């Protein structure tokens, strides 16, 4: 009788072998970048097969590393090809793109604030990206950076509360969760504003 873990492990190894064969055969750099994302999914599958709370605690840093690595590699690719200052225009003028973003982004941001922490920051940041992409990018880097800085201060203050007044732990957890939310949301919304303009 083959168990659940062994079955998943066999399937994961087959997928990893296929992914690396095609990564080996590929010569174009952008194709390789997309296949890197496939390899990331395989790595997350291996972690998810552990199937306890440990897996959940390990997947979240994996996702952080995945998105950071992907953004860095994309920027390196753009610089290497010399197309970083290329202006892409967005002539997709369907009617939905005018009406959907405020309501949908509002629901996503509200849900993210209720959820808080890194997951809430990701969901709320996705809402802000959607709004900025569909409405055109307004340059408000100073405001976003200021909010991010205050979030950092709040996070540090929460840890001081943990160390000095341990009986106020619930208050400190709330402050830390809100600060992480604001930081992740600010970082993600920077992605949304950098879609079109040439000087990022």
């Amino acid at each position, binding site marked *: 009788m083959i168990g659940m873990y062994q079955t998943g492990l066999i399937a994961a190894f087959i997928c990893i072998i296929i992914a690396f064969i095609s990564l080996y055969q590929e010569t174009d750099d952008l194709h390789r970048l997309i296949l890197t994302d496939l390899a990331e999914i395989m790595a997350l599958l291996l972690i998810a097969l552990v199937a306890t709370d440990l897996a959940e605690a390990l997947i979240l840093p994996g996702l952080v590393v995945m998105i950071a690595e992907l953004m860095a590699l994309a920027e390196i690719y753009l610089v290497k090809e010399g197309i970083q200052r290329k202006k892409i225009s967005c002539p*997709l*003028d*369907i*009617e*939905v*793109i005018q009406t*959907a973003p405020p309501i949908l982004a509002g629901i996503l941001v509200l849900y993210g604030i209720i959820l808080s922490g890194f997951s809430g920051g990701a969901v709320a940041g996705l809402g802000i990206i959607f709004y900025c992409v569909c409405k055109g990018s307004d340059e408000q880097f100073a405001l976003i950076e200021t909010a991010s800085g205050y979030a950092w201060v709040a996070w540090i203050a929460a840890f001081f509360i943990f160390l000095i007044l341990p009986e106020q732990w619930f208050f400190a957890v709330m402050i830390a969760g809100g600060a992480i939310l604001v930081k992740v949301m600010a970082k993600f919304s920077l992605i949304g504003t950098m879609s079109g303009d040439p000087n990022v």
Partner: protein
Amino acid sequence: MESLIAASICLIIAVYCAIRAVLERETLLKLPFVNVMNFGIAGLIVLILPHPLTLVAAAAYFVGSTLEANAIASAYARREQP
């Protein structure tokens, strides 16, 4: 039990329309079949778990997939004609 019979009727209609959508040749004529599939799935969601929050889930699924179909149809209509 009674609601499970109703749920299976919804699911059979959804699968039938998905098969019709896969067999259809033209892109714009696939979309009405997909829309019937969305109706069936939204009914199925409510019938398999009766709870007040399920109504919100069914409405969110239905509105989301309608938005998707609207965007696909509009972008297909605005594309460059060959």
